[in-house]
């Protein structure tokens, strides 16, 4: 049983690298947790932001390659939604976590969602290298920009806007969990 979110292989007509780049931006199931992780690590400060910036794309790349090469039997499709809820709620709560925990979350998210992307690539018999690198590059850019955005927040009101965004992400992911439970 495949979760409903494995449907977004892009065909930009410009080759696998651009397909990979575009993938993240048209796949809310992948984009939302990346946004939430970026915002949370940024809120915690530049050190955390840097950890996410390098851990997430690297893990995503590894995950995609592993998923494409070994295409393991898909298990726990809801884990992706659970991770998104967790990350969104962390942004909304704005409570500190130790650095290793944030880095582990980034690695887990990258490996897990990357592996799904890899499985999907295998199913579509799409090219591995270009797609995987493209997705990782897009993730890198998104984390850099949004972690810096959250890290640059000074005013109380702006911080609350970031927390509201986290709350929206968590809420949307909660619904997503509901949909996948209903279907599966």
């Amino acid at each position, binding site marked *: 049983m495949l979760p409903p979110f494995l449907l977004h292989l892009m065909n930009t*007509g*410009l080759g696998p690298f651009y397909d990979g780049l575009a993938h993240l931006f048209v796949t809310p199931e992948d984009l939302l947790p990346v946004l939430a992780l970026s915002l949370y690590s940024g809120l915690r400060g530049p050190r955390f932001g840097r950890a996410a910036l390098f851990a997430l794309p690297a893990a995503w790349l590894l995950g995609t390659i592993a998923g494409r090469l070994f295409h393991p039997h898909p298990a726990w499709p809801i884990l992706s939604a659970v991770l998104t809820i967790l990350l969104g709620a962390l942004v909304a709560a704005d409570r500190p976590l130790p650095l290793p925990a944030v880095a582990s979350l980034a690695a887990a998210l990258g490996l897990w969602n990357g592996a799904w992307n890899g499985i999907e690539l295998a199913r579509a018999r799409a090219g591995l290298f270009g797609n995987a690198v493209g997705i990782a590059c897009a993730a890198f850019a998104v984390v*850099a920009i949004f972690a810096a955005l959250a890290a640059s927040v000074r005013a109380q009101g702006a911080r609350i806007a970031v927390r509201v965004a986290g709350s929206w992400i968590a809420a949307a992911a909660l619904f997503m969990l509901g949909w996948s439970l209903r279907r599966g």
Partner: protein
Amino acid sequence: MCLTALAARALAHEARPAYLEVKETAPGRYDVLWRTPVLSGMRLPVLLQMPASAKNVKEPTVQQLTDSLLERRSVDAGPNGLAGQRIEFPGLQLTITDVLVRVELRDGRKWTTIVRPSQPWIEIAAPPGRLAVVGTYVVHGIRHIAFGADHLLFVLGLLLIVKDRWTLVKTITAFTVAHSITLAIATFGWAEAPILPLNAAIALSIFFLGPEIVRSWRGETSFTIEHPWVVAFAFGLIHGFGFASALTSAGLPKADLPLALLGFNVGVEIGQVAFVLFVLLLERSFRILEVRWPRWAAALPGYAVGTLGAFWFIQRTAILFGWIPA
């Protein structure tokens, strides 16, 4: 290095679109012009399939040009013409090429549109207006700049040299003004640049920036570093001819020429400004996150500009003199 070369080849490759022109000459009668690009001696594997109701009035003629195949047909589609009919492009879905379609009907309607591999057919139906022509070419312009690695690399090189925001504005504006001038001149046919030397010159402009970037790292100065907008203007004139060749090889409608030119130029500017903003945003993000790059990583963009510029320059010069096939 081998990898760089491969990537360079892949990026420098320009996906030229095929071109279809359908012109209604008498009620139900159409002149069809179908041009497919030929790359490295290979014809683009895309066919033109007219609706079944359209019968050839005379034998189609095929003409071999240097970089494309030109096919002319004359068809009769009966009293209702082609309205509501589908022209298909079998094979297009397997390529990464687009087809630019220009239709001109006797009732004065004419329009231009792009057919993509994801939907390899076009329907002759209610026409879009002039706005749609502009829109089509805006998109075309954005795509050209977004996936034309050589132009972006040149802009990146300028960004690496420029020191402050005011100089940046002047430099980007100079580049924009310069390439708009030559783009317009070349599109209206007042002047043209032969494609092979032009490509080599564009590569040279990128190559030229490499040593300048290294100089600016070392804290040295030069004319380019002091007055980057002058260099941007001069090379911008060359890049404009490059944009023009992309626009004309896309096949240009005579009647909508100013509109198409405007749309294409606006698209190019949108893509260029978006790229500049993206680079600045990324750079600012690294600063906020206090990312300290190792020396080699910080130097990477600069060396990419220089190396790829040099590579393309050598490659395109070799093509120019016929040492290697295009």
